[in-house]
């Protein structure tokens, strides 16, 4: 077979895979606009916003949403601060134990989420911290740190250390070096790391499923429980809102970092 016809055949295959990837999400969005009581496509193209209205008036979902936002902002702020400092230390410094440190910072990403969730829950029960905001916060900080380290560390590697040394040589204190030289140079990466951490925390289900209790139920957990118990289009309305959030996130990341650039070797 000629290369051109292979490429054409793969092009058709690619469209089929796109369809496979998009299908469940498109159905979710379509069902969210149904005027009926049941989970079904809007009959005869009659669209309705009733389930979005029901969503705004559903105390459980609104509360869980606010809690999730609050938690994700707090967790992302803490893990960005810790992660930026950590990435700085790991990338700039040639410690003896640098590899061990790097592994430690990345490992919450490598071990299965359920293992981390189970270990944290058991630990919090032991401490008497069950169902507290602070335990959810600690869990989400641990979960999000690797992402900040990856994004910020990657960017920091591209910044020449000479700038920092020059500033130091010119008499800048360590704090001035950090706040006037390094942080401005990697500003975009820090912002991207924060947004990444926010999204990871906001969407986290598995670890939260273990750690959360009645008073710390986040939006994804509320959705999970709802999906298990009740079958109404309310869940489709929440999901549509989250899909919009994801599309927005991709646009923002693309503007900030150029997402595809991340996955393309430099030319």
């Amino acid at each position, binding site marked *: 077979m000629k290369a051109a016809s292979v490429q054409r055949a793969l092009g058709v295959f690619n469209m089929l895979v796109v369809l496979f990837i998009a299908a469940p999400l498109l159905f979710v969005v379509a069902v969210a606009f149904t005027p009926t009581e049941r989970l079904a496509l809007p009959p005869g193209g009659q669209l309705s916003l009733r389930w979005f209205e029901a969503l705004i008036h559903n105390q459980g979902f609104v509360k869980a949403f606010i809690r999730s936002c609050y938690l994700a902002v707090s967790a992302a702020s803490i893990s960005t601060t810790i992660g930026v400092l950590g990435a700085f230390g790991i990338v700039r410094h040639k410690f003896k134990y640098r590899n061990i440190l790097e592994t430690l910072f990345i490992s919450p990403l490598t071990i299965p989420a359920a*293992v981390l969730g189970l270990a944290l829950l058991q630990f919090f029960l032991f401490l008497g911290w069950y169902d507290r905001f602070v335990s959810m916060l600690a869990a989400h900080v641990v979960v999000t740190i690797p992402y900040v380290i990856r994004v910020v560390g990657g960017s920091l590697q591209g910044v020449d250390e000479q700038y920092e040394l020059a500033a130091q040589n010119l008499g800048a204190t360590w704090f001035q070096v950090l706040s006037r030289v390094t942080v401005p140079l990697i500003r975009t990466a820090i912002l991207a790391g924060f947004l990444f951490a926010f999204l990871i925390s906001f969407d986290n289900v598995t670890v939260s499923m273990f750690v959360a209790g009645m008073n710390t139920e986040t939006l994804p957990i509320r959705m999970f429980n709802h999906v298990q118990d009740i079958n109404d289009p309310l869940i489709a309305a929440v999901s549509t809102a989250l899909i919009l959030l994801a*599309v927005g996130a*991709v646009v923002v990341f693309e503007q900030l970092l150029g997402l595809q650039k991340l996955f393309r070797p430099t030319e």
Partner: protein
Amino acid sequence: MFNKKPNRLRKAYAIRRLIHFVYVLPGVAILLLFFVTPLAHTLKNSFHPFSRTRGVDASVLILDHYIKMLTDPYYLNILIRTLRISLIVTLICVVVGYAIGYYLANSSRRVQSIFILTYLTPWFVSIIVKAFGWTLLLAPHGYANKIILWTGIVKSPLPLMWSELGIVIGLVHGFLIFAILAIFTCLVGQDPALRSAAANLGASEWQTFRKVTLPLSLPGVLVGSVIVFTLSMSAFVTPTVLGGRRFPMMSNLAYNQSVVMLNWPLGGAIAIVLMLLTVAVVLGYQRLIVMGKWKVVFQ
């Protein structure tokens, strides 16, 4: 040469080193407290006996939970199911991901960016939304079954959901992007001159692919399969929603034993086995990079 550095500079370097060390401390403290300690605690607990009436007996150390995990057919079955599903998902993702990665690597930059973004978007969508979307399609009266029944191939709805097939579909949907990205980056980084050289030397297109492009893209295939495999091994939400109660995977088992049955030692042992398996795969893959017959490719 380096030990002739002026004194002042050497002092500055020493201060820098100290500051870098201090920067790492908050992260290390948080991870030691909320990551290493909980795991160590779970590991220790997994060696203690448990009884329904007396709870965990911390004075005795036993291996019973691990023996039970690895010999009792019920638990062993779930372990084997988890491995089987993960292998199938990895295989599908690598084959499909290779086709897509190959197509994109040979496309214009515009096509590349459009489709990479298209494939990336669902990754930012919560896994619970994706799982819910699949229930709309795969349920006995879902849209996929409606279409299949309409074509008349089968008379009754297929068990697309609450089956291993449903789990596989959901996991492939969730993790395909990682295989695509790993293979695409590897293929797009190849020097096009290599292919022209092969063609100049008289290789057919198929030979060029088999002898040049494919071997050089193996690192991407390996990275992609390790990511997909470990993610599948630890899947939790997808098997719960799409597999139902009858088809639990390891994470579900760990959840049921600990959170539902409150048997922390056994739940912990299941979690530790799952973690060791995952870590073994990652380490084995790193080994493969350092040595073995593909060593040349990875250099």
